[in-house]
């Protein structure tokens, strides 16, 4: 089954992103939103762990990036910016949603 994993907490505050990455299977998608967007940024201490997940597609919620003043050029390669409509679409097209709070 293809799962949409959602992560809404900063990887520097909580281990939720790390735990998500440790359980996400190839073919799944991960959406970083709210404070979770910081996990999509280049050059952080968790960046290598994110980029190592070759079989997982990453999305970051644009409105949450903008709210926090993080510009898209700061994002890791391959992370796609999504809006709420895309979030809904991802939830619908994947088989289920797993929230890592």
């Amino acid at each position, binding site marked *: 089954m293809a*799962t949409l994993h959602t992560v809404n907490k900063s990887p520097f505050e909580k281990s939720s992103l790390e*735990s998500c990455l*440790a359980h*996400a*299977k190839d073919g799944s998608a991960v959406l970083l939103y709210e404070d979770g967007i910081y996990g999509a940024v280049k050059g952080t201490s968790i960046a290598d762990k994110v980029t190592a997940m070759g079989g997982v597609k990453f999305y970051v919620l644009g409105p949450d990036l903008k709210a926090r003043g993080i510009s898209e050029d700061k994002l890791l390669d391959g992370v796609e910016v999504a809006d709420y409509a895309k979030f809904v679409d991802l939830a619908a097209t994947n088989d*289920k949603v797993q*929230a890592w*709070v």
Partner: protein
Amino acid sequence: MSEQIKKFMYVNRRAPYGTIYAWESLEVVLIGAAFDQDVHLAFLDDGVYQLVKGQDTSGVDMKNFSPTYQALGDYDVTKLFVEKESLEERGLSIDDLMPLTYEDEDDDWAEKDSITVVSRAELADIMDEQDVLFSF
């Protein structure tokens, strides 16, 4: 109560008492038991602490809800998965956990362990098989 049977997983990642999530998620499990779904409980990250034996809350004056885990077997909630790496990272082993059991009516009411310790990779597979996941 319903014709459709889904694979339900309740995901527990937090320690007991510091926040209410552990207790209130257990309340969902108990109510949910009446709906005859295929129920799985996952304990990973700090969620493994919920099952540690010998909880005594008298000094903090909070309700000790750990006995409720013992009752799960009577509610036909028998599939509790505890993540091995989460235990090890916290210096725990299965011996530190409550011995939760159920009586298997399909096997002459033999007493069986409700807890299965699984690896991170195995738990990822089990999660992948679920239809609905509840996070608290």
